[in-house]
């Protein structure tokens, strides 16, 4: 997941510019491509969600199977705020994000000292609890029917007020949020914090022994990721003008995992972006052709896990690095300077470690 240092330290990278440019022109050609404006909004929203989610899955190695809960919390809080208080776009979004962060923070207290499967299972359990609450608490959430008639408040800029009623206007607003999220997360993953997260994923024990309080990092990243999910959820409730419990279901939470992985979240920052685009396009294009699109998609998914678990981004990186390798094939490998005290000797043969000291010998 390492990027070139120059790209890593910049606010904006070449990839971002390309991505934003492509997405900014989307409303101009999406209909010509046989699709529709609204799809663009959903794709951009789920990309935000996916990027935030990958902070957990790809960067920290924490598989959450209940992340839909926070997406849903964002959606409900945004809707409820508009209904109970007053119509306000930015305040609603901020509140939704904070609420999801808070919920994430509470859940993370239970989760942060869990690892692997226990972590995954606890996320499922919490996800189900939130989902259950959304369905049961009908006086607040509207139960299974959902929270309806959520407005799309205008974007107030002091001098001007931009209505977001049309899908294109909302798309550009979501794109703006997306751009902010991309830049912020890009900074984050290259910051010391992001680097520590990746270190924790690679080797939690060592991270602890070099002095990091791993619990706090896990807690922080879970809460942050929940906040991003909540942000995406608030936008989704605007797009749909309603909030439904389904986005909190185990199935929906599984889908975001699937998207992130198909795209290649394990190997690339852009994995979830690719994955979301692929999933949505597959759903809309295949879904119109066959009612069993899920079967085909499932098969593709299985095959890709089997043969290309690094996902689409992995395939891409391999091809790019393959080209690079070819180009530099003749260049001699730089040899290390062997200092006086170096133990770096010629031998490469792996010797079997003496194991089996006591139960502690890992």
């Amino acid at each position, binding site marked *: 997941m390492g990027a070139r240092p120059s790209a890593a330290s910049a606010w904006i990278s070449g990839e971002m510019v390309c991505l934003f440019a492509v997405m900014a022109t989307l409303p101009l050609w999406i209909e010509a491509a046989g699709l529709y404006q609204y799809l663009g909004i959903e794709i951009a929203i789920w990309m935000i969600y996916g990027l935030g989610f990958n902070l957990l899955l790809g960067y920290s190695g924490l*598989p959450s199977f209940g992340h839909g809960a926070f997406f849903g919390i964002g959606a409900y809080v945004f809707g409820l705020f508009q209904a109970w208080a007053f119509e306000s776009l930015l305040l609603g979004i901020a509140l939704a994000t904070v609420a999801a962060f808070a919920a994430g923070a509470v859940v993370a207290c239970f989760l942060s000292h*869990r690892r*692997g499967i226990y972590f995954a299972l*606890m996320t499922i*359990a919490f996800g*189900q609890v939130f989902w259950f609450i959304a369905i049961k608490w009908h006086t607040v959430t509207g139960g299974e029917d959902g929270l309806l008639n959520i407005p799309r408040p205008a974007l107030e800029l002091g001098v001007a007020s931009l209505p977001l009623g049309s899908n294109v206007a909302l798309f550009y607003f979501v794109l703006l949020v997306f751009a902010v999220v991309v830049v912020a997360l890009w900074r984050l993953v290259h910051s010391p914090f992001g680097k520590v997260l990746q270190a924790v994923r690679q080797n939690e024990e060592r991270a602890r022994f070099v002095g990091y309080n791993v619990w706090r990092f896990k807690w922080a990243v879970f809460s942050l990721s929940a906040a991003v999910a909540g942000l995406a959820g608030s936008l989704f409730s605007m797009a749909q003008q309603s909030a439904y419990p389904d986005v909190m279901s185990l199935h929906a939470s599984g889908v975001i*995992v699937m998207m992130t992985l198909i795209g290649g979240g394990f190997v690339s920052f852009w994995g979830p972006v690719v994955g979301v685009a692929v999933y949505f396009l597959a759903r809309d294009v295949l879904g119109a052709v066959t009612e069993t699109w899920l*079967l085909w998609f499932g098969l593709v998914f*299985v095959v890709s*896990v089997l043969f290309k678990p690094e996902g689409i981004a992995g395939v891409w990186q391999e091809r790019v690095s393959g080209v690079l390798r070819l180009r530099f094939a003749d260049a001699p490998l730089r040899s290390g300077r062997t200092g006086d005290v170096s133990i770096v000797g010629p031998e490469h043969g792996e010797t079997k470690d003496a194991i089996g000291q006591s139960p502690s010998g890992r």
Partner: protein
Amino acid sequence: MPNLVPHLLNGLSLGLLFALIALGFMLIVGVMELINLAHGSLFALGAYFAMVIIAPELSWLGSVGEGYQALPLAMRYGLAILLAPVLVAVVGMGLELCMRRTYGKKAEYGLLLTFGAALVIEEIIRLVWGPSEQYLQVPQAVSGAFLFAGLIYSKYKLFAALFAVFAILLVWLFLERTPYGAIIKAGAHDSEMVRALGINLTRLRLLVFGLGAGLAGLAGIVLTPIWGLRPHVGIDAVIPAFLIIVLGGIGSFWGAVLGGILVGLAVGITGAYASEWSLLSMYLLLIAVVTVRARGLLGRKSVLEA
């Protein structure tokens, strides 16, 4: 204040059924350190296979087919309960062959593969048998109801609970009394040791996966007359299985049984007082237990935590 005794008994029988659902899941998790998300789909597949065996479309076979259909239901049912899990085991083994590519990689890959497999199996079921509700016939002897202490109980439920006890004991005997069981138990904690014993790990995994899948199929057959049968019935099975394993402790046979019974009791008792909370009770139980005991009730340290 309702009389609690029937609810406790009912919770217990439900718990045994939950334990039955969790058995196959437990074996696979314990030995292979793999969460088999396709467990639910294999569960459903077992029931569908059984349905076909009990009432097959055999008109193309002529008199042979008619002869088969004329056999008593109990016989066809017995055949189904023996044969369908074997067929599911074969499917499971096929899945295991696919799984092999993911060994040695991150545990998440196995999780994802089985997630995908669950999706595919469910869609195939839908394609073959249609999306609608199906019905699994059961022999007269175990259908109907009986009266006890003024209340009616389902005969089938009792039969299913007894069957679950029987299956649990059988698996236990297998684990305790056969060399295979000893290997599986060893494998559950130390694959290094299995290798040192000179056992073919590849075959062991195939066997375990087949066994786990077969048990899932068996649970499907037993539960279907209670839950009904539709393509997505598996999700109703995989989540409790998941929960029970974690509650009981990964890799622990008795943990799974205990976990199942506890969940059954929780659902049964909340059902008596506040039925609207009965499903949530499972999750709250899990969160409470795992918060206090990180590895579940009887769990030991697992590779999956790393």
